[in-house]
């Protein structure tokens, strides 16, 4: 398995993502600068979090219009697996690879906290191993997922809500939907379910010493999916 992490100007979770994939999972990992078009033949492309272009204009807006993202779009069109986390999710929405947009948190302020996630569809490349409620940190100012009603209907019908914010015991509860996301949506899938954008940071929940290693289940799911499709 080969992974590629795209770095944009101002990304600040790029090192964390590389550490997660390369050091925790020992997966061969390439780092591609946003001006490049060659993605280096990956099985999965990862878009890291963290204030590309300072979130100026709109979070993810400028990063989504870079050469590397053109290649990611083509990669996705060919059925490639793409995971965007936090700012990576925002970039995916801005680039049209995922529907909807991420608005300012309902609190208006930045929120850093642990959230609890429920995998709503276990039959995706990212969720097959997610057999429990995940505890994963969020850290964002614009994570309030929004889409129009028609799109929302389609997302729900096609089971494209990958994760929802829930209470620690797995119930949907506005008190645990800190940013105010529509239908408590924390992660959204593309039509072919191979592109996932999510606000919480699985790469920050990768070792016991950090308080949770639940984030690993998402990558373990991808590994298992790729093994099956290769075989």
């Amino acid at each position, binding site marked *: 398995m080969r992974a590629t992490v795209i770095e944009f*100007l*101002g990304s*600040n*979770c790029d*090192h*964390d993502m590389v*550490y*997660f994939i390369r*050091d925790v999972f020992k997966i061969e990992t390439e780092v591609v*600068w946003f001006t490049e078009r060659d993605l280096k033949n990956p099985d999965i492309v990862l878009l890291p979090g*963290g*204030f590309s*272009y*300072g*979130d*100026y204009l709109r979070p993810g807006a400028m990063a989504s219009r870079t050469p590397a993202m053109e290649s990611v779009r083509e990669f996705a069109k060919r059925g490639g697996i793409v995971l965007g986390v936090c700012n990576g999710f925002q970039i995916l929405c801005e680039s049209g690879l995922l529907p909807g947009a991420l608005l300012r948190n309902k609190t208006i*302020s*930045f*929120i*850093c*906290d642990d959230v609890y996630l429920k995998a709503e569809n276990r039959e995706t490349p990212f969720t097959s191993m997610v057999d429990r409620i995940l505890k994963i*940190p969020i*850290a964002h*100012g614009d994570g309030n997922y929004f889409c129009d009603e028609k799109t929302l209907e389609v997302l729900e019908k096609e089971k494209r809500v990958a994760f929802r914010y829930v209470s*620690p015991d797995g119930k949907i509860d506005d008190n645990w939907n800190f940013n105010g996301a529509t239908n408590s949506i924390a992660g959204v899938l593309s039509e072919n379910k191979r592109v996932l954008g999510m606000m919480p*940071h699985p*790469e*920050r929940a*990768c*070792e016991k*010493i*950090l308080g949770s290693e639940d984030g690993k289940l998402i990558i373990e799911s991808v590994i298992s999916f790729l093994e099956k499709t290769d075989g």
Partner: protein
Amino acid sequence: MAEIEVNLELARKHGINEEEWETIKKILRRIPTYEELGIFSAMWSEHCSYKSSRIHLKKLPAKAPWVIQGPGENAGIIDIGEGYAVAFKMESHNHPSFIEPYQGAATGVGGILRDVFTMGARPLANLNGLFFGSPDNPKTPYLIKGVVAGVGDYGNCVGVPTIGGQVTFHFCFNGNNLVNAFTLGLMKSDKIFRGKAEGAGNPVWYVGSKTGRDGIHGATMASAEFSEETEEKKPTVQVGDPFTEKLLLEACLEIMEKDVIVGIQDMGAAGLTSSSLEMAERSGSGIKIDLSKIPLREKHMTPYEILLSESQERMLFVAKRGREKEILEIFRKWNLDAAQIGEVTDTKRAEFYFEGKKVADIPIEGIGESSPLYNRPFEEPKRFKENQNFNAGAIEDVKSLKKVFLDFISSPNLCSRKWVYRQYDQSVRTNTVMTSGSDAGIIRIKGTKKGVAMSLDVNPRLCFLNPKEGTKCAIAESALNLAVCGAKPLAITDCLNFGNPEKKDVMWEFVESIEGMREACIKLETPVVSGNVSFYNETEGTGIYPTPSVVMVGVVEDVNNIVNPFFKEEGLEIVLIGKNDPVIEGSLYLSHFFNIDKGKFNFVDLDYHRRLIELLLSLSSQKLIESAHDISDGGLLPALAECFLKEGNNIGAELFLDENFERMDAFFFGETPSRVLVSIKKEKCNRLKSICQKFNIDYKIIGKTGRNILKVVFNNKEILNIPLSEIFEKWEKGFERIFKK
């Protein structure tokens, strides 16, 4: 532009007195140019020259075998072993944060980040000391919201976690809130960069944001002389650009890998002037700069303005010759402006040119060596003895323990700070193993078992009552906060916030405080490796309480052995370790409920304290205890509550007390240094007792962890019984109430 006549009157408007004016003329052997006057005024300002404090700061210990870099550089550096070192420093941004809380706080964070990465360290953790006026003051909510958002947004965007700090409310900060920003960075101990300008002929480079008229000489420009200038020439609030800072950080660290940098320094206070002069001064060299080559953001800037601009996110560096191409390539990659603006010389002079004309030519030694040094007069104020003589005997003792406790735990200085730290990214960089809400912030060092711990502390009330002993307490508490987690305290950085040093009583506070710091740092073997002084924190003649913030930095040998404050299961023994002789004199209790900041508090016995620290380190390395928490502001009962006040926790405590205490208030809410609460499995108690005896530290079992209540039994009589949920609710909502008033 018409020539400006430079004379004593103009010098005075630049904050230069007659004596200093004469010295300038002697150094130059002529009347200074307008630009030179600006340079002297900046370099000899209190902020850059430390003219009132230098004579005293010299007394502080700065050496230890693990100190790689002491004061005098952009940041201090200590060795943490296994080939790694950490660079750290704290700096104030008080005045800007009062005028424009969001930008003032944000640019404070930006400045301290640059001080650290300038040395070649990657910033890995921030702390912040925030001091606000009374919650009832109408300006307080506005200031908190702005400052917290400013601190958060800047650090969050750059991607440095904020893992601790202090938020204190007191009416003494009504007219002057304080923002003390701390950054710690990690580097290889053999890859350190300093602010040097060596090697005549080496090019001097400018990189980062373009220069504008931001923050030019606030004091000067506000004077009548300049008030008729056009609106656009007035100094403006400095605006932070964390995105550019992030690019600058990555570009600098990348270029430092290349062996092209000779020396590098942030353009902070007094901008290009101080950075270029300081770099040349450290190396005993000269520097020649063409101001026409500085990238400008605004039109028609004068050489004076270019020299003194405090635009943010700019660096000055000296590179090896012939490496221009590599340098430009890296900065281009990071979308940054870089320009070669001059060169190092061997003339020992600072020469500045503008459009072909020399506008300033100053001997560098002159500006440093002859810089004013004041031994300002100081005198113990009358109030000192009066305050010490205060007798708390007349204060009515607690009637309802429950009511007082719940009021206290939800009060501004004790309630949960989650509203604040939830706005700070604490987990970016995936190193955070302990964060706000515990005794210290700790990051692990990837690739090793080690961790680096840090804690920001000061109790302004104690420093007001007794600056020397209060400062000792700040350092002692900071060291203890590390030790309870299992980290060995190694060194401190300080941020000395005081009032007007021209007042004898303020100067006395400062001198006493330094003496306390000196004694504590010597005894605890924690030298002062960097720091900053902020005087003139006064509004309309009223100064702040002396507030010498310190951050203690230490090392955890094995992050798997870290101890946190929280109770983990029922049935553990709760042990109070340390001298249990609390008093309400000078306590938060007295201040909060009675509005009295008076009395002689218990001084810290540094020998005892040092033994307590060693004891705690021994306990954590042996994995003997389940939790540990130091007892500080608020005394025993709030400290006990802090051991269970955590979301989702349902382990409470039952205290069984048999001692004779005269007063409930002193016993439950009184304060004294050197006390720690630990929880431990019953079968390990004897072992703990014998270790305490070995270190000659007091030991007493005071209760047990239990189900979800807090219960206190005194002589077999229940005097307190509250469900945890009720305490949690009060404590958690305390902060929001500040905004609802």
